[in-house]
């Protein structure tokens, strides 16, 4: 067994109700040490090409990061990876909370779920032993009821319960997975994949402690203690601790990069209605993920025009902008209720909000109306219509049957030029970050294998000033020269390439985006020291970047096999047209410059510039020769 791991993966064949344990050795672990890398490896190897995302052949992998469970702030993450029913490509979503750490403590680094159970079931994992249990009584129940029932049945008050909601049961392509009710694998429809397997929940409980797995538990413990004090001494983590992500809204609005009215504008005229002051009035507290001193998770509770409880998380910034400015709803109470509904029903907040904003713009242009939506009149600014739509999406009834498809498929169905209003990449609705004010984010949206995700790489403003705290944090990664937020030249592409590899490494290590530099308090040397203490490896920044790059290439090979190409690495046309309002009015992303940046990026990655397929040479450098042949990826 390798230090930092259990050296064990749980395999669950739901068609035949069988479980098995598979072990791996250290040489394998050092290449695929957890999270995204470990999960992508198994998805690519084991899912037959062309498998139906909602069929039994899809493979859902839940993989804890290498450091998940270490006594280290932000070391909590795990990845859910499968073929996405929303995009048809590499589906990926990560979450924090307690489930990933508990999986490690229960004796496994990952769970591989295959097949489809004939009846609803749930999976119970306790200290290296797994049981598939009857889940018929849980199907259709709300998440708190399911969590309570599992804890009662197992007698484990602190069993960590990961589950889907009604949207997952109903196979909504953007259904999410939640754990502990408050932490979400939101993106790319992993909840629908779990629902398609008739698997309502996976509960885990372990008796081990991460330090028992570590090469040098004393050193790891000391790093964790030191860093937990640093959280309040660093401006970025201090801010996350003080306000959480909802504190971002006002600043993004002032900078002209708050998505507004389906990404037509960059600032919201009524931002006070959803800004920090309004949010503070409904905030009831904050919570933490496992062992994390940042404690950034906001809770809201109020009984006023709507009733919202603190059962679930948020709203986080993505919901505030998604349901607020992007749907032109300037009422934080509506935003909080919409967020609560999504969480209760198991819907991804970003895709739900993006799809509704798309439908609202279609309504403005007479392309979708009450006649198409069972009487529902979805208009910008109409909070009541939004709240009416969400449960119907989760149940796929009435207007929800159409809205549950997501913006790209709705546009394909209704036509009439509506595709130009669908703010999505590869079918995944864009996160709430306006790329016309930070163009590196656009590179991420366009080229990421899972679609328009905002956590793929660094956001450009970090690199504008070489004297800033954030910039200094990036220097150990080899980033030494500043560049403008709107620059798309060679320097920006180089920074972006480093950022993608580093962020991918974070997803392998199980570190939250809000932990490591340059985004936050944990310096690059701290990350290296933690990995060394956990594993005993003499690891360097370069090796970590390579681990991150290997994971990206596995995802790319999966997409290539499923028919994706450079043509899919494109932005919605709107981003190539001027912003219609706000401080950055007129800003747009030059199409030729952007295509040039993608070519330059492919060159750095060692991918064929015409097709976006990894070359054999680069695959060999990354130790992925096997993937070229086994994936039938036709590498260039």
């Amino acid at each position: 067994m390798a230090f930092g791991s259990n050296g064990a993966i749980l395999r669950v064949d739901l068609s035949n109700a069988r479980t098995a344990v598979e072990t791996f050795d250290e040489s394998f672990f050092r290449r695929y040490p957890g999270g995204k890398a470990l999960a992508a490896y198994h998805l690519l190897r084991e899912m037959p090409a062309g498998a139906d995302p909602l069929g039994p052949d899809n493979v859902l992998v839940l993989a804890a990061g290498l450091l998940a469970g270490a006594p280290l702030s932000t070391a909590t993450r795990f990845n859910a990876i499968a073929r996405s029913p929303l995009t048809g490509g590499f589906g990926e979503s990560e979450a924090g909370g307690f489930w990933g750490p508990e999986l490690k403590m229960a004796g496994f680094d990952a769970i591989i779920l295959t097949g489809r159970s004939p009846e609803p079931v749930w999976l119970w994992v306790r200290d290296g032993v797994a049981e598939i249990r009857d889940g018929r009584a849980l199907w259709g129940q709300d998440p708190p009821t399911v969590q309570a029932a599992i804890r009662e049945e197992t007698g484990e008050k602190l069993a960590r319960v990961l589950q889907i909601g009604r949207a997952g049961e109903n196979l909504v392509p953007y259904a999410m997975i939640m754990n502990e009710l408050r932490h979400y694998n939101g993106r790319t429809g992993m909840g629908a994949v779990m629902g398609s397997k008739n698997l309502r929940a996976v509960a885990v409980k372990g008796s081990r402690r991460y330090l028992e797995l570590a090469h040098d538990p004393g050193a790891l413990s000391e790093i964790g203690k030191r860093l937990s004090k640093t959280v309040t001494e660093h401006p970025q983590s201090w801010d996350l601790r003080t306000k959480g992500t909802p504190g971002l809204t006002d600043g993004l609005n002032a900078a002209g990069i708050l998505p507004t009215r389906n990404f037509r504008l960059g600032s919201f005229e009524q931002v006070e209605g959803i800004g920090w002051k309004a949010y503070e009035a409904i905030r009831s507290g904050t919570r933490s993920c496992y062992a994390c001193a940042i404690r950034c998770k906001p809770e809201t509770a109020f009984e006023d025009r709507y009733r919202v409880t603190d059962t679930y998380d948020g709203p986080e910034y993505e919901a505030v902008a998604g349901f607020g400015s992007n749907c032109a709803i300037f009422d934080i109470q509506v935003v909080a209720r919409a967020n609560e509904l999504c969480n209760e029903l198991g819907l991804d907040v970003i895709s739900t909000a993006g799809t509704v904003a798309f439908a609202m713009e279609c309504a403005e242009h007479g392309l979708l109306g009450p006649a198409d939506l069972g009487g529902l009149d979805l208009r910008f600014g109409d909070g009541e219509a939004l709240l009416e739509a969400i449960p119907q999406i989760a149940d796929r009834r009435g207007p929800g049957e159409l809205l549950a498809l997501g913006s790209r498929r709705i546009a394909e169905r209704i036509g009439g030029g509506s595709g130009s209003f669908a703010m999505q990449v590869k079918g995944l609705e864009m996160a709430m970050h306006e790329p016309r004010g930070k163009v590196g984010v656009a590179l991420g949206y366009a080229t990421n294998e899972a679609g328009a995700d905002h956590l793929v790489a660094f956001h450009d403003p970090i690199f504008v000033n070489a004297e800033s705290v954030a910039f200094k944090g990036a220097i150990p990664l080899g980033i030494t020269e500043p560049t403008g937020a709107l620059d798309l030249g060679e320097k920006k592409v180089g920074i972006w390439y480093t950022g993608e590899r580093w962020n991918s490494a974070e997803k392998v290590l199980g570190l939250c985006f809000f932990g490591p530099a340059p985004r936050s308090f944990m310096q690059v040397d701290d990350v290296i020291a933690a990995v060394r203490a956990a594993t005993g490896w003499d690891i360097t920044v370069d090796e970590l970047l390579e681990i991150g790059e290997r994971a990206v290439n596995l995802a790319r090979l999966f997409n290539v096999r499923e028919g994706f190409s450079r043509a899919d690495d494109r932005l919605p046309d709107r981003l190539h047209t001027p912003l219609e309002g706000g401080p950055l009015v007129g800003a747009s992303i030059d199409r030729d410059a952007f295509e040039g940046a993608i070519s330059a990026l492919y060159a750095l990655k060692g991918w064929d510039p015409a097709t976006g397929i990894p070359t054999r040479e680069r695959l060999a450098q990354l130790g992925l020769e096997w993937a070229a042949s086994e994936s039938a990826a036709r590498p260039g």
Partner: protein
Amino acid sequence: MKVHLWGELGFYGPAKRGRFEFPITHEMRVTDALRLIGVPEADVAVLGVNGEVVPLDDPTIVVADRDRIDCYPATSGG
């Protein structure tokens, strides 16, 4: 002068407060005011004076005690 340090810039305010009064006795360049307050200029991405966004590097912009300044950080990710 009224000062609002948004987001992580509140870290540099008195007792880590983001919103406070900062008396100044004479007009001065806004960048000098930031230095007096103790906000690292390099970490200010957007600067507002009396509700209007102003360039960070414009030496002609001056503020007086009656003014309000808003400083926004290079916010990233959510």
